[in-house]
């Protein structure tokens, strides 16, 4: 049996989330114990009504606490029950409000530059002390955002040839990735790419521009 009424709780508004999920969990238990069919139906309706009347949602609100996250919207719920007398109406499912705060656009995350660039010396892919500190900071950020996947882009100043810099950028990205993985970040979360000297961050042919462009640049590519 797979009744629509039992799925209503899949998309609760955040304010109704905990209560609705509590009810669903109870429902689940009771179904398994095979008792109180009518009460379950009432509770299911209540859960549905909570979901139907979502309070306004702050798009920037933090993620639900870990306790709530244990019941995810994709949890297989109970097969559900048929309300004894009336069939439930078939409402148009509201847009998933959770999406609005759990998943911010990647463009927005990257605009805030949550991960620091790692800078290099001329024609070098050595990780110096400053670079090491930046990588450690980034490792912290990644541990606080455990779902993020990042691309480490290797970049070079314009003084090498563009062909050579493709390889140098690759080595820089690799060096940072290896260091990051050494700090406990899963290699599955880290991709590398080399852009050589093709995407300078600071235009111009001077020491400041060159120094700014010799970097490993982090981009959050998944969350």
């Amino acid at each position: 049996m797979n009744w629509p009424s039992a799925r209503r709780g899949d998309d609760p508004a955040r304010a109704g989330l905990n209560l609705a999920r509590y009810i669903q969990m109870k429902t689940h238990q009771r179904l398994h114990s095979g008792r109180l069919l009518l009460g379950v139906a009432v509770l299911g309706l209540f859960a549905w009504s909570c979901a139907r009347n979502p309070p306004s949602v702050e798009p920037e609100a933090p993620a639900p606490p870990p306790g709530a996250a244990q019941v995810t919207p994709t949890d297989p719920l109970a097969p559900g029950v048929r309300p004894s007398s009336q069939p439930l109406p078939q409402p148009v499912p509201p847009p998933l409000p959770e999406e609005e705060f759990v998943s911010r656009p990647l463009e927005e995350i990257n605009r805030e530059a949550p991960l620091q660039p790692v800078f290099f010396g001329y024609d070098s892919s050595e990780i110096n002390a400053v670079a090491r500190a930046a990588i450690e900071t980034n490792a912290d950020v990644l541990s606080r955002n455990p779902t993020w996947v990042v691309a480490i882009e290797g970049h070079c100043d314009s003084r090498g040839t563009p062909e050579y810099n493709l390889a140098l950028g690759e080595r820089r990205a690799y060096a940072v990735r290896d260091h990051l993985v050494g700090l406990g970040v899963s290699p599955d979360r880290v991709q590398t790419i080399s852009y050589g000297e093709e995407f300078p961050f600071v235009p111009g042919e001077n020491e400041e521009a060159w120094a700014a462009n010799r970097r490993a640049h982090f981009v959050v590519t998944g969350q």
Partner: protein
Amino acid sequence: MTRLLHCLALVAAVATAGSLVFAQQSLPPDPPARARTGVDLIIGDRIGAQPRLAVPDCLALTGDPETADAASTIAQVLFDDLEFEREFRLLPRDTYRTIPRARSLTDLPLNAWQELGADGVVSCAVSREADDQLLVRASLFNVSSLESALGVEYAGSFRNVRLYAHELANEIHRQQRGLEGVARSHLAFVSDRDSESVLGLVPNRQTKEIYIADYDGANVRRVTVSRSLNVTPAWTPDSRAVGYTSYRYGHQDIVISHIYEGRLETPARGNERVHNWLPSFSPDGSQIAFNSNRDGNPELYVMNRDGTNLRRLTNHPAIDTSPTWSPLGHQIAFTSDRTGSPQIYVIGVDGAGLRRITFESYCDRPTWSPSPYNEIAYASLTGPGYDIKVVDLATNEVRQLTFGQGTNESPSYSANGRHLAFSSTRRSGNKQIYVIGRDGRGLRQVTYTGNNEMPTWSR
């Protein structure tokens, strides 16, 4: 006016042209006026001196403006093509004003051309024929013998009239000088001229795409339309495809564009973890040398054209990059910074026989000449920027082709080995493509729009 008639009885056309593209037929042969030898056909008799050629405007035998345009374009392009190889001394076209115009293909004032100092004159006539076909007839007259040394006839469309001039130039070089000219070759290069924003998470990044042009910079056509970065093009030896490094799939991989078929190949089969870049085709086209990170560090690999039979060529924790094949395909030159600075090395295709070639401060991006020369051109750091140098592999002598004007990088040889294309920031500060003789003479700028770099010269 009488001198206009002098040549008439003496003209004979020797139609030897073998065009790849045009329908071609011999001129109606005039009976030879006297017995001749092959030597008679070669213009210029001063030993060691360049024969002096005049290339006046072609005659337009039909009155439409397209034919008139073709007449002047073909003459100018032919002039430029002949001047480019420097086998002839071209009399400047602005000195021709005093010479009466030819009345027909074979009725031209050879005495007047002789007075101007010409050893030979190219006479040509163009006309619009049935079905809007352009008919181009040309003769090369020996001014002293009053004979036609070469006669050709091409018919085709009006679409690209420069091609007729290029083919005629190749024909003249082949017959008169035994030289395979490069007038019909192409350059492929990287340009930001139509730059768009790269699709992706980081704003303000501009695309670079691959373009091709005639060797003289005309007829620019775009090859890639990927909204991404495309760099390091390399022609296949059959000149029908360009391999390059593309980011169109989100990572660097080698893409081969078959430009006349609209088909793509990705023989190195890269992915998020396996990056491949900088393809270089073996002289017979059967193999590709390239750069890859697949073993954790930029190393050189060789694979068959279809991606099979992958072999690792280098194994060193330093950077190994920029492979280029020897003329016979037995060796590969490349850049390595294994001694602390990038230098040029040569290694056998089997991975044996490594030797260092350059001993300067910083040398990179080698390109091996075609036969009969045996030399490697490269970019050498000579100041704030690079200059193009050439090392002769027989003598180890190094000669310098550019001298500190801007930065000069990415040299690429023409198929006959007599010229190199390279990128330079001279003049405008923008990167533009120039060509220069292998002796350092005859510099020409061939691109002007946007930034253009990493030229590769087709066979």
